[in-house]
């Protein structure tokens, strides 16, 4: 049994004993469990294992920290450090933000307000500043899966828009990855701020999801904490769902409410601002009150205006007026004829509804009102005029006796207190008088003949004749104040033979056409104009009728214009038309036939019909075209066929066609051919006046123009000129003073390179050149003018005698060459002003003591004056074109020997020259001579022993050259 048992279960027993041993031995068991523990832990449910291990792990951590805090700190160090760093960074940012904002607002007006607010609320100033200045709004919040970048949830603020949030969240995480990869950043946190203008993206990274807030404005740094809190809460609540997020956001619907709290974050600046409401309410009240005051003042003003207007109205007396409670009360008297006070209101802008008036009627005695009343009661006839003169009422004119009586009664009534009513100016016009006036009026009417008339018992009887065309006697009654009921008229009709009535009757019976005018000339009726034969016949018979007693009816001035006549007029008009030849024409049965020839360029016969009053329907014309050889038509045809250039003008001269101007030779050839054609019967075509302007001809023409220009030049004589092989040769004489022939070439279109000229100089006797030469040789002074008069050279002016004699010599020379130099009009220089000076100079003497050659000191002023005079004279003479020279002549008295006297006189002159030279007189102008005793100023007599002192002198004479 034991053996069997051992055979069957010995292996199991030994295995069991090994296991029992293993379980009993703790060391063995620990080794065994240690072998499988990692694997078992890995296979166990995470949740259960986590729960089971949590207390032990917590305890272990606690113990570890108690034992040595550094171990755990070292372990956690890599985890904490980034979080701490970030927290500190945010705190610093927050501090800077607060500092920035405080500085920004510290000195502003609202800064002061905020300081007060800080003091009032007991908070720090920087807090208040931040509170006011950080205006922001969270517009979007995205919750993004960290692993896949897929959008878990998205919340938007009101009115905020964005593109597809799914794409945005993916792109955001792509960018996070991009930055992380690009800069090898190992940190677990991602991009935490992206800023774009006003927009900021703040992201908070959690273990499974990233929360991105899109903020517009200026958020405070604390907002980071708020966002982080929200992210933390979301992770707390839905950690597992976030971890397992596979793109199905329906499992995480709850997180949106959390995100919503972020979106609601905003801070709008509490801008209480200016109390607009209160101010506008006050303003409204003020405006209303002001308006009320203004309106009441204005209505008072208007009322006063109305009152003053009433006061100026005649016939209105205001006895009382007042304003009470915005209503106007007025009482008084008014004449019924005055303007209605109520109607005066209109235009014063016073509200009529607020006016309460109480008017009593009275009769005003003001003349104006009395006049009105009289006009109304007396009804004066039109012939009476009432007016107010000096407060009296004056009636003037004509009236019947009855009216005058009425007026007189009214005047008596008025005499009691009213104005005077003066009717003395009204003449009594009795009925008979008016009747006579009526009758005499009738008698002057043409076509009316009064046979008999009389007045019986206040009735008027009249008989007579009247033409039916004359004025109606009855109608003439109107306005005469004759009572028609008292008029008994008996009129017989008759035909008046007065010319104007005959004219009327003729006009009515003959019905003259428009072309006939009837008029009265010296009592005769004259008809003038054009009419048909039928009408003329009728008029003629009327004239015969009238010849028995009536006025003469003269119809000789009416032309018969029967159709035939008009036709003939048309035909003769055609015959005068150039280019139209009437061959035959006749009239048959009222139809007109015409045949003939017409040039196509002639006027259209049909169009000539209009205005002739010939009926075109009755005209049968047959025209053959032909070419007229009349010059006018040939000219037209030539113009059309030859196309003359604009330089050619065609015209008709004495029936010949003449072409003038310039044309190239080809055109001239064509014209010549046309002229030959025309020579057979046509007018002559004269093209001889057309110049050939082919280039060579043109050049030759320019050359000829140049030559003719040269020939016209004074001082140039063309001896010879030819043209050879396109070159031009010219030779001749030219005066050196004449124009340069080469210079004249410019502007002539002649090519200077082709001009070969040869000029010999000569002296031209052309007056112009002679004048030039004379001017150069004679150098005439300014006072001389040389001019050419009819080929003669005339010298006019004043010159010194010397210049005149030179001019005369020149004139003699020139006369030999046939040139006239007229010097007859030269006058010797008239030195009017110089003459006086010359006189003064020549009467001056310098006196000397006996035997002396130097003048005494008393002569110094004389010398001074003389020097000045000499200088002035020399200067003036020079200006006049002459040279003045002064001869100083020394004299002596007769005392002593003659030779000594001669030398002393010369010495005296020399001395004076030296003295004058010393005073600035040019020495070359001073000539010196000694006259000794031969030219005494006073005769010497034998008896005077000492000689005459007057003769011891130096005298001066003036010479002009």
């Amino acid at each position: 049994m034991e053996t069997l048992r051992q055979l069957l279960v010995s292996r199991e027993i030994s295995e069991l004993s090994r296991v029992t041993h293993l379980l009993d031995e703790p060391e063995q068991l620990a080794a065994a469990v240690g072998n499988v523990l990692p694997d078992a832990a890995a296979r166990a449910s995470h949740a259960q294992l986590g729960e089971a291990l949590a207390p032990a792990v917590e305890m272990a951590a606690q113990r570890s920290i108690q034992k040595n805090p550094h171990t755990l700190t070292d372990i956690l160090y890599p985890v904490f450090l980034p979080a701490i760093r970030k927290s500190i960074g945010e705190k610093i940012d927050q501090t800077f933000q607060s500092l920035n904002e405080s500085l920004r607002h510290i000195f502003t007006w609202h800064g002061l307000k905020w300081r007060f607010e800080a003091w009032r609320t007991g908070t720090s100033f920087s807090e208040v500043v931040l509170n006011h200045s950080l205006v922001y709004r969270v517009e979007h919040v995205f919750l993004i899966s960290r692993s896949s970048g897929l959008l878990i949830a998205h919340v938007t603020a009101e009115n905020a828009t964005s593109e597809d949030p799914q794409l945005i969240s993916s792109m955001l995480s792509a960018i996070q990855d991009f930055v992380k990869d690009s800069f090898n950043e190992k940190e677990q946190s991602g991009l935490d701020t992206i800023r774009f203008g006003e927009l900021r993206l703040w992201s908070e990274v959690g273990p499974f999801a990233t929360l991105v807030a899109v903020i517009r404005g200026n958020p405070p740094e604390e907002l980071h904490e708020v966002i982080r809190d929200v992210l933390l809460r979301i992770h707390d609540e839905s950690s597992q769902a976030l971890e397992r997020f596979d793109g199905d956001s329906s499992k995480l619907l709850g997180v949106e409410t959390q995100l919503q709290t972020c979106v609601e974050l905003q801070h709008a600046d509490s801008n209480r601002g200016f109390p607009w409401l209160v101010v506008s309410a006050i303003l409204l009240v003020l405006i209303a009150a002001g308006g009320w005051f203004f309106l009441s003042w204005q209505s008072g003003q208007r009322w006063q205006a109305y009152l003053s207007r009433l006061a100026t109205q005649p016939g209105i007396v205001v006895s009382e007026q007042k304003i009470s409670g915005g209503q106007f009360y007025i009482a008084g008297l008014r004449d019924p004829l005055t303007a209605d006070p109520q109607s005066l209101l209109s235009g014063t802008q016073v509200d009529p509804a607020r006016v309460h008036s109480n008017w009593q009627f009275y009769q005003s005695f003001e003349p104006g009102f009395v006049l009105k009343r009289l006009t109304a009661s007396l009804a004066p006839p039109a012939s009476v005029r009432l007016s107010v003169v000096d407060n009296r009422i004056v009636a003037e004119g004509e009236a019947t006796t009855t009216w005058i009586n009425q007026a007189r009664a009214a005047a008596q009534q008025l005499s009691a207190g009213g104005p005077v009513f003066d009717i003395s100016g009204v003449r009594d016009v009795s009925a008979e008088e008016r009747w006579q006036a009526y009758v005499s009026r009738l008698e002057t009417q043409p076509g009316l003949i009064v046979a008999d008339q009389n007045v019986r018992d206040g009735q008027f009887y009249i008989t007579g004749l009247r033409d039916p065309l004359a004025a109606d006697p009855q109608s003439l009654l109107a306005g005469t104040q004759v009572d028609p009921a008292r008029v008994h008229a008996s009129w017989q009709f008759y035909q008046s033979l007065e010319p104007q009535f005959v004219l009327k009757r003729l006009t009515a019976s003959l019905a003259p056409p428009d072309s006939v005018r009837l008029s009265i000339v010296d009592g005769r009726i004259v008809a003038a104009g054009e009419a048909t034969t039928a009408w003329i016949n009728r008029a003629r018979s009327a004239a015969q009728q009238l010849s028995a007693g009536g006025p003469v009816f003269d119809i000789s001035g009416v032309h018969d214009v029967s159709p035939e006549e008009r036709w003939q007029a048309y035909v003769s008009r055609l015959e005068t038309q150039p280019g139209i030849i009437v061959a035959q024409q006749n009239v048959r049965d009222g139809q007109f036939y015409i045949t003939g020839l017409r040039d196509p360029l002639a006027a259209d016969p049909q169009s000539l019909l209009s205005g002739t009053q010939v009926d075109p329907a009755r005209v049968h014309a047959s025209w053959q075209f032909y070419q007229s050889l009349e010059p006018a038509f040939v000219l037209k045809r030539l113009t059309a066929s030859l196309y003359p250039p604009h330089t050619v003008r065609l015209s008709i001269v004495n029936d010949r066609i003449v072409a003038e101007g310039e044309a190239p030779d080809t055109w001239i050839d064509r014209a010549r051919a046309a002229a030959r054609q025309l020579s057979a019967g046509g007018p002559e075509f004269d093209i001889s006046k057309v110049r050939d302007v082919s280039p060579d001809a043109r050049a030759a023409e320019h050359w000829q123009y140049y030559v003719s220009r040269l020939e016209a030049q004074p001082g140039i004589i063309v001896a010879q000129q030819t043209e050879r092989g396109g070159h031009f040769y010219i030779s001749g004489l030219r005066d050196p003073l004449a124009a340069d022939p080469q210079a004249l070439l410019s502007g002539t279109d002649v090519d200077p390179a082709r001009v070969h000229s040869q000029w010999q100089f000569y002296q031209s006797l052309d007056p112009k050149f002679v004048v030039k030469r004379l001017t150069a040789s004679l150098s005439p002074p300014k006072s001389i003018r040389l001019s050419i008069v009819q080929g003669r050279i005339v010298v006019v002016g004043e010159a010194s005698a010397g210049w005149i004699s030179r001019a005369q010599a020149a004139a003699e020379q020139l006369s030999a060459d046939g040139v006239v130099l007229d010097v007859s009009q030269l006058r010797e220089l008239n030195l009017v002003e110089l003459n006086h000076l010359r006189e003064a100079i020549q009467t001056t003497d310098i006196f000397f003591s006996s035997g002396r050659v130097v003048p005494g000191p008393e002569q110094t002023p004389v010398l001074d004056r003389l020097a000045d005079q000499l200088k002035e004279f020399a200067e003036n003479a020079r200006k006049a074109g002459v040279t003045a020279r002064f001869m100083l002549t020394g004299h002596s008295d007769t005392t002593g020997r003659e030779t000594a006297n001669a030398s002393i006189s010369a010495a005296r002159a020399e001395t004076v020259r030296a003295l004058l030279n010393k005073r600035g007189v040019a020495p070359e102008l001073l000539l010196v001579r000694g006259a000794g005793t031969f030219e005494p100023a006073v005769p010497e007599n034998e008896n005077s022993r000492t000689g005459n002192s007057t003769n011891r002198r130096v005298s001066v004479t003036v010479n002009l050259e």
Partner: protein
Amino acid sequence: MLQKKICMLGGFAVGKTSLVRRFVQSIFSENYLTTVGVKIDKKSVVLPDKAVDLILWDLAGEDDIGSFRVSYVRGATGLVLVVDGTRPATLAVALSLRERAEAEFGAMPFVVLFNKSDLTDRWAISDGEIDELRQRGWQIYLTSALSGERVDDAFRQLASMVAK
């Protein structure tokens, strides 16, 4: 609402961008591809039982596998491998990109698009090669960005694969 992150992988100039341009909703310009290296588009697909928004991460095509930003694939639930049918080398590039992605983030469903199927005269992938890939159970689509042929089918297929 169900969203899935899908990465489009493929070599340089295989036509990923033009493939999605006409069939997806996009707000970002193609500049993002060259600046950030990724452009994000959205393709909404309605399956019989639900609607899925495919958030397509169009990664910049690089033939150099080394410069591939694999971190962009994190969190993706599917891949679209794009191959240029006229350039056989781009198949190898797409497959190695997928290997890199799966090595990092584990296996995930994918479809393979052989693009430019309209350029038949320059087509360089043999039917045999494609059949061999189909044998592995892969979803293969011959697409044309030009004609839009089968592009919708491919996205629909991928959507049903990732939404299970």
